[in-house]
């Protein structure tokens, strides 16, 4: 009743929260199952673990943190953090890769 304006303050229904939490629990169990059977796909294990983690992160950000219903501006702001990190990682990785693994030191 008290919510006449839908743009700023979106109220997520209770059952959506419960579903999301259920999904997060399920994904956590999936992580463990993948971990227990990791002998079968050794090289892929880390990628599977992080793919699941990324899925969980999406659920938390989109629904618990309400980013899905937030303004585009705030989504962009939050994204810049991850872009900055990607940059820090990429350039440091270029250095480490060419320096240590290819042995090129000035």
């Amino acid at each position, binding site marked *: 009743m008290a919510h006449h304006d839908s743009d700023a303050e979106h109220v997520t229904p209770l059952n959506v929260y419960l579903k999301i939490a259920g999904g997060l629990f399920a994904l956590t169990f999936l992580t463990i199952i993948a971990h227990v059977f990791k002998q079968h796909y050794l090289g892929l294990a880390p990628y599977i673990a992080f793919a699941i983690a990324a899925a969980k992160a999406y659920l938390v950000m989109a629904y618990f943190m309400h980013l899905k219903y937030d303004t585009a501006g705030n989504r962009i702001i939050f994204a810049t*953090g991850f872009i900055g990190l990607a940059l820090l990682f990429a350039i440091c990785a*270029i*250095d480490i890769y060419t320096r240590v693994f290819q042995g090129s030191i000035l």
Partner: protein
Amino acid sequence: MGHHSSGKNYINEEPGLLSWFTSLDHKRIAILYFVSVMTFFLVGGIMALLLRLELFAPNTTANVGQVLKNGDVYNQVLTYHGAIMVFMVIIPGIPAILGNFFLPLQIGAKDVAFPRLNLASWYVLMLGATLAILTFFNSKIDTGWTFYTPYSIRTGSSVVMMVVAAFIMGMSSILTGLNFIVTVHKLRAPGMSMFRMPLFTWAIYSTAILQVLATPVLGITLLLLVMERTFGVGIFDPKLGGDPVLFQHFFWFYSHPAVYIMILPAMGVVSELITTYSKKTIFGYTAIAYSSIGIAAVSFFVWGHHMFVSGQSEVAGIIFSFLTMLVGVPTAIKMFNWLATLYKGSIQFSAPMLFALGFLFLFAIGGVTGIMLAVTAIDVHFHDTYFVVAHFHYVMVGGTLMAIMGGFFHWFPKMFGKMYNETTAIASWVFIFIGFNVTFFPQFILGAKGMPRRYFDYVLEYEQLNKISTMGSWLITIGFLIGLYTIIRGLTSGAKAPDNPWGAKTLEWQTSSPPIMHNFDHDPVVTAGPYEYK
């Protein structure tokens, strides 16, 4: 217009000295920053004079060259000079003083978005500064302001305290930046679109983005350094398989953008000065606005040019060398636009304008030598010589400090409601400008001849140029003293300032001098761009 009949303004509305320390008004907080940052500048400046005095003569000739007790003391003074000037003067300088005061005024806002946070930022800076200064009485630091590992892991017992201090001052910087971003996004007056904002505001806005995005990485780097020293975690310590070069990557991921935190606001000030004292619409408004954002963006890609001889890989060095030259593009865009603004303008050679022109001249030298240093082959020769020292002083002092001085004089009537004495202000400029070149130009030659930086002694052949350089530092001192005198005289016995003594067009000149507590009598409505002169 807009005269407040009651004679109340932000200075006299709340009585008592104590009210300044609890006031949430952005203009009062700016004055708090003004007083504290100028005090730090005095301390850092005295350190610089001591350094130059030590280098007046080589120690071998006679005792005359021996001002500081020994090399250790020299290294400590050098460290404090760098750390104070970087973290406590230039980084908070323009954004926290002029930005705080004029950003809300220029966009027609009543205050910054979070006034309480704004005051908190000042206290946080003071906390960090106090800690930093306390280390001076504990065991002095001799790492240089960069805290490079592994040396910083092993030397002096109060590195941890100093690093924590830098972390805290970083927090202050983040909070200020955050505040300004939200202010610009949310508090613009009706009609004040992003592309009607004055260029000073654009510059402070771009700076704020850097403050928020770059400083956290410095935060974690410094925290890891603290961990390294207290728990020996080994991440940056080669003894444990850690990588000291990674420290430099992390450090410069912040500290290179920090260089633009220092220079971008100065560019914003210069944009205001040049258009105001040419009485001409600024040339290429949009290009200047975008180039501020452009410089901010590019600054994240170039940090490795501080590390050409650090042992990073050749591939990384080459990539950084190319990327670094990109900085020249948006910077040159600004330079040419300023020059084009001057063209056929009604130029008025008042003190602020002279500082702005001084900026153009000195910053051009600083910028072009920067492009030289971006070339890896040249940098390998010049690295850690006085050439680099001269280069960054041309940018930071010749650029930023000139702009700070120009900005102070330009906005002095608005801030305090009094006029300053034009003659002494110009005298101040003459001494600072000439003294600066006398001090730092010889250092280019010294560096090219191979004199290494950070040493407290040198061989005989460098003596003449070092003498000239030291004498220049005295000229700069005289210049700043005259500047201080001008400000104090202006405050005590300056004539009453009109609302808009320079005939400027931006919003801060439409309110009374000094402004009233809530900035404007009536909420301004903006219908045109910021520099519609002719």
